[in-house]
């Protein structure tokens, strides 16, 4: 099939950037979206043009590197799917496709579709360490974690840190990302001792890194390729409230 692509081109962080139009010809429905862009880039290179810069790594939907807003939706229209796992069979011959980078002040555009997501790392670092046993391998089930708690933590841990939640949020808030980390560690014995400090530090970092505030639009949950629920944001709010209660230990 043949497609018309409108791709955001920007030479560097200082450049203003604009949408440019390209034709993608003979696209196979079995190709992934990134493979389609690879072939377009081959054509661009052959004709002496600048290839489109975009982030990617594992191409199997687990690394969180791909970051494209396709027709106004982070990672495209297919639910629970990263760009690399989006296939061209989701599109029809003659479609016009708009491809843009994540847009948030906290994610400066480096080039074309590549944004700098260091701000998410800063939130992670603000979260700090977890206390856990070191030394020899502990016996199995030394730490008792019930199945519901393990499932809950695992659901939160499914976050790949791609930043689609920020890209989708009308306020450019990173609250879903921060909440997945806060919730996961707050329910596990390995994270509980630092839960109070962690929720305060991570929510503070959200603002200092230039993200917006959460106003419960829930666009993040709808855009998340890993289906992270906004119930974790409720959990983060609960953890924050808990941190307000004076503790004899701190």
């Amino acid at each position: 099939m043949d497609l018309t692509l409108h791709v955001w081109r920007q030479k560097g962080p200082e450049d203003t950037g604009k949408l440019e139009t390209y034709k993608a010809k003979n696209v196979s429905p079995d190709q992934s979206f990134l493979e389609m862009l690879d072939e377009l880039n081959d054509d661009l290179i052959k004709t002496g043009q600048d290839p489109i810069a975009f982030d990617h790594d594992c191409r199997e939907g687990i690394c969180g590197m791909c970051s494209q807003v396709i027709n106004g939706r982070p990672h495209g229209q297919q639910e629970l799917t990263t760009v690399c796992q989006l296939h061209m069979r989701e599109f029809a011959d003659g479609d016009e496709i708009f491809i843009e980078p994540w847009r948030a002040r906290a994610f400066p555009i480096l080039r074309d579709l590549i944004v700098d997501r260091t701000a998410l790392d800063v939130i992670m670092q603000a979260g700090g360490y977890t206390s856990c046993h070191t030394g020899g391998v502990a016996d199995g089930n030394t730490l008792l974690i019930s199945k519901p708690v393990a499932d809950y933590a695992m659901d939160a841990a499914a976050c790949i840190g791609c930043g689609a939640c920020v890209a989708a949020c009308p306020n450019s808030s990173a609250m879903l990302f921060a909440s997945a980390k806060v919730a996961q560690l707050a329910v596990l014995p390995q994270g509980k001792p630092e839960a109070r400090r962690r929720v305060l530090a991570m929510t503070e970092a959200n603002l200092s890194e230039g993200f917006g505030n959460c106003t419960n639009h829930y666009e993040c949950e709808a855009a998340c390729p890993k289906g992270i629920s906004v119930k974790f944001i409720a959990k983060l709010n609960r953890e924050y409230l808990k941190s307000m209660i004076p503790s004899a230990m701190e």
Partner: protein
Amino acid sequence: MNLFTNTVGRKILMAVTGLLLIAFITVHLIGNLTVFAGPDSINAYAKALHDLGPLVWLFRLGMLALFAVHITFGIQLYMENKAATPDPYAIEKTLVTSFSAKTMLYTGLIILAFLLYHLLHFTVQVTNPAISAVNLPLDAASRPDVYSMMVLSFQKVFISLIYIVAMVALLLHLAHGISSWVQTLGWSTGPSQDKVISIGKVLAIVYGLAYIAIPLLILARIVK
């Protein structure tokens, strides 16, 4: 204090003040609906409120504080969110958020403007002095005739229109606000989310229509 600067702290302040304001509009609505029970009911209600004396001023100060916190942080958070958000996407698409969630600042400002007018109209009674209770004859039980003031006011199309438009703004504000605090105070569990949002919207419509009924039924001369 962290509560006044933190992103979640201020969100919680918005929710708590919002909840108390919802409690206020609930009591206020029930009180106002006594207009449908006739002059005696609402005039007695107005007199009972007025007779609280210094408590009225204590209550007013409390309301002022609630509004001050809710409005200040509402605008502050909005400005920060604007600053965090660059130019929009070429194709703007939202999936689950609502018109009411996106327009909270604007409906809030409309309600604020209305509140000032409302106080000048019915509390200070300076916008329409000729039909204000201070200048109307007392009722049969020698009470200020609040009933006549309301009826004569809402018989004017312009005044009724102001109230109806403002109450539509209130309805929209509540459509996001009523369910929002459940999430903000951390009570949301995931599966209950959709139900909570739906209940919030239904309640907002109930509040909105009940408030609109007062000027509308008077304007239509059904209540006179």
